[in-house]
């Protein structure tokens, strides 16, 4: 059993969803995560990340406000799952609601320490 990080990316240039859409999305997320937890495969519910107050720090003391000027996609959150293989983790990721709004899920093996 290994741990895999799921990184959610979505298109930040798209229009913001309405409160009703957000409510519906919240249910989709909770049902999806609940389903993973019900299989006893959720290692950590992770965190959601906001694009507000993002800073990029570069060499030479250069600090800019967020990476979003040049990038279309931004990381919106992550969870950690426990699976036997990356294939199994990818199978779980297929149900992720981010895919419904044109986003993507990146699955990465966590190197055990």
């Amino acid at each position, binding site marked *: 059993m290994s741990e895999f990080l799921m990184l959610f990316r979505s298109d930040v240039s798209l229009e913001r969803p309405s409160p009703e859409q957000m409510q519906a999305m919240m*249910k989709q997320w*909770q*049902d999806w*995560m*609940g*389903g993973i*937890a*019900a*299989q*006893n495969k*959720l290692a950590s*519910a992770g965190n959601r990340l906001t694009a507000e107050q993002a800073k990029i720090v570069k060499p030479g003391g250069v600090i800019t406000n967020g990476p979003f000027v040049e990038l279309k996609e931004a990381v919106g959150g992550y969870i950690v799952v426990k699976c036997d293989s990356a294939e199994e983790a990818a199978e779980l990721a297929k149900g992720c609601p981010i895919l419904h709004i044109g986003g993507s899920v990146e699955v990465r093996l966590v190197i055990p320490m």
Partner: protein
Amino acid sequence: METNELLPHLFRTEYRKIVSVLVKTFGLSQMEMAEDIASDTFLTAAELWGLKGLPLNPVAWLYNVAKNKTKNNLQRHQLFDGKISTEIKNNAAEKFELEIDLSPQNINDSQLQMMFAICHPSISVESQIGLSLRILCGFGIDEIADAFLTNKETINKRLFRAKEKLRDEKISINIPDAMEIDQRLETVLTTIYLLFSEGYYSANQNKMIRKELCLEAMRLCYMLIENKITNTPEANALLSLMCFHASRFDARINESGEPIFYNEQDATLWDADLIKKGEYFLNCAATGNVVSKFHVEAAIAYWHTHQNDTKEKWENILQLYNKLLQIEYSPIAALNRTYVLSKANTLLEAIAEAEKLNLTNNHFYFILLGELYKTVDKEKAKKHLQSALALSKLVTEKQNIQQKMDII
């Protein structure tokens, strides 16, 4: 109450009080002595009550006998010590003024402190629960062995080592300070919930005794709430949860002790008083910023007291199960969530999710699959119920599953 049930009943409720007060008086190092005196008291009761009939006030009788046995025990030891030690030779036993305080206040304080002493982090969680069942709940060694799916010898060894450890570490008997109360309280709450579950879900067909176990757990929890330091949101959430569950106690078991499923229960048998109490303690639990699993489970139990099958009810329960599973996985929560999914979302979604659970050594898993498939694919439903039948060990359960198969 029948005479032959009175003694086990009193053992459950009074054993821990006698042990707690004695340990509070003489220290944790004297736990063995306290247990011996308490056991001895009940042995005397069993012998005498059988011959002479019940005393007018059995509890007061027990306290009196326990007090006398303690005094005799101490005198014996003092005499013995006196013989070998010349210095205290003249320290006659009569001079020894001993007051064992069995007032309600001291009984309550001692029990509370005993709870924390037993649930001390220096011993393993398994030992904590074992000792709690033994001392706070008056369980027999074989009953504890059953609960842990092991043998008496293992339990005896485990409890012996745990007591030794508590003695060696010189654990004092008191309420922990603010720094460690949260962590310590969590073990205490878990143990109380286990005790409640033992009564609520046990295979024991005696409804009286099972109910008594549940009430004992609620009483222990209420003792925590009565104390300012231990009156936490989590403790209130647990009591609320137990009130909601207990409100269905009479509705969920039939005359012959067989379980009645939630959707087949006669809701007029639900105890409105306990539901109100549950709501009260749930409100008390809604402070602070920690949402414990007890909060979530209490909220789930709250929605179950709503009889009507509304979309709102099932959607709320589904989201609560999603949350509960993210806090802590358990097979039973996973199965319940999947059933609720069929109510809140769609049957097909529930089936797809159920197929992923893979709890193939759990007969409830196959009962769930049978239930979900029964309108969609009768053959599959029957096959799953057959698997459930093969895995089930209880006669009443087997009958229940057979009935389900016959209806399909």
